[in-house]
Structure formats: structure tokens, C-alpha cells
């Protein structure tokens, strides 16, 4: 026969488990990125600056 103390212990553990479940669910939602792979590729930074020194080097080369 389950007495009152057992019920209390069970309810406390159930409560703690649910709290952990809620916290882990929220944490997982925070940590998981919502950026798709396609978006990841699209937002890859692009350096628009050309190497002026290399261009000058090309210009200065002979026509051979």
C-alpha cells in the first residue's frame, strides 16, 4: 500500500523530471539554429576587394 510519503516522493520526482524536460526542451530550441544549409551557403561572406598588386603585376608582364 502506498503511503503519503511515497506519494509525496513520487510527485516531487515527477515534478523535477518535468522541470528538467521543459528546461532541456527550451535549451534545445535556443541552441538549434534555424538557418538552413542553403541560407548558410548564401550568407557566406564575399570579399569584393581585388588584389591590386596582382593586377598591376599582370599589367606589367610582357606580352609573351
Amino acid at each position, binding site marked *: 500500500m502506498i503511503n503519503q510519503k511515497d506519494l509525496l516522493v513520487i510527485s516531487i520526482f515527477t515534478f523535477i523530471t518535468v522541470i528538467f524536460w521543459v528546461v532541456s526542451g527550451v535549451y534545445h530550441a535556443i541552441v538549434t539554429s534555424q538557418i538552413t544549409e542553403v541560407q548558410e551557403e548564401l550568407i557566406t561572406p564575399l570579399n569584393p576587394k581585388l588584389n591590386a598588386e596582382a593586377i598591376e603585376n599582370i599589367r606589367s608582364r610582357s606580352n*609573351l
Partner: protein
Amino acid sequence: MNPNRQLQFWRKRYAEVTPLLKTRRVQAYTMIVLSLFTVSFFGMLAVRPTLETITTLQKQIEDRTLVNQKLEQKINALITAQAEYQKIASDIPAIYNMLPQQPNVTSLIIKLEEVAITQNVSLTNLDFSPVTVFGTSDVAQVPVASTAAEPAKDILAAESTIVLPLSFSVTFTGGYQELVNVITQLTRMNRIVTIESADIQSADAAQSSTLIVGATTNAYYFPLE
């Protein structure tokens, strides 16, 4: 079981339990246990999904704002790149000459011959490593430049580049100064050529003014597709 007897049984049980429920200790325990179970129940079925949905939506807003910012930056970068490209538009043919999309072995040979003729030396030997002249190729098919060629190594080390080396060895025969000029001109051609190693030796013991220079070199090409 007889319904009357059942009724009596439950009345007896109720009579036993009722005084118990009136004690403060039992009331407190019952309240705590029921409260905890209630909170757990609603936490599991209502609070958790709601909080997860809220957090997921907030995260989506944050991430999409970030993506939006990055895309704005990229659009600006592309506009700048377009302007930069326009500035060097006249140099594009020279750049494609420097790093063609195909091995262009024939034009390279012609350039080497022109260098030899210009400097008044003889092109006595020319040996290319196997190269795919039609279809696709990869680094495994064309030997990669050795570690001595630092510029080539830098290009090849870049993650996104697929610059392929075209190895060849060339031998020139002529006077010392002419050969020095040839070597200098090889590195100043309008096609990227790196010299990995070069050795110089006398062509003939009796005719000491004539020298032979053998150079192991790499030209490069950059298939865009």
C-alpha cells in the same frame, strides 16, 4: 457482490477515511501532492510545448534577422565587386591568358619557343607530364607541384580553388647571360609559370661558353566548370 453489501462496505471505508482527511497533516500532504502532480501534468502537456514554440519562434526571428543582415552585406559586397570588375574589365583577357581554363599546352609551347628565339638560345628539350586535354581532370591525374613552389602551394592550399598544375621540364642551350634572361623571362611571361628547380651545366668541355639549363617548371590552369 450484493449492491447493499457493497454500499455498506464503501460507507464503512468513507467513515474510516473522513476523520483522516480532517487532520492537518493529511490535508497538507494531499495538497502538496496534488499541486505537484497538477503542475507536472500541465507543465508536460501545456507549458513545455508553449515555451518551446515561443523559444523556437524567437530563435527564428533572431536567425532570420542575422541572415537578412548578412545578405544585405553580401549585396553591398556584390555591388562593390561589380564595380571592381568593371575597373579591371580591360585586363580580363590578360588574366585568362595568365591562368587559362584549359591546359593550353600548344600556346605554352609557342610562348617557350618565342622566349628561346627572343633570347637567341636553343630549346633543346621539352617534356610535359600527362595532361588531360579533353574532358575533366583532377589533381590526382596531374601531378601537384612540389613544396618548393611556394606561390603554387599557396594557391593550391586555398579551400575553394581548384588550380591545377601542368608540370613540364624544359632545357635551353646558349650563353650564360642569354640563359639568365630566359629564366627571368620565363617567370615574367603572360602565363603563370613557376620554376621548381633549375640546373646549369656546360654543354661541352671544349666549348665552355655554351651552357645547358634544365628547369623543372609548373604552368597552371583553372577550370571554372
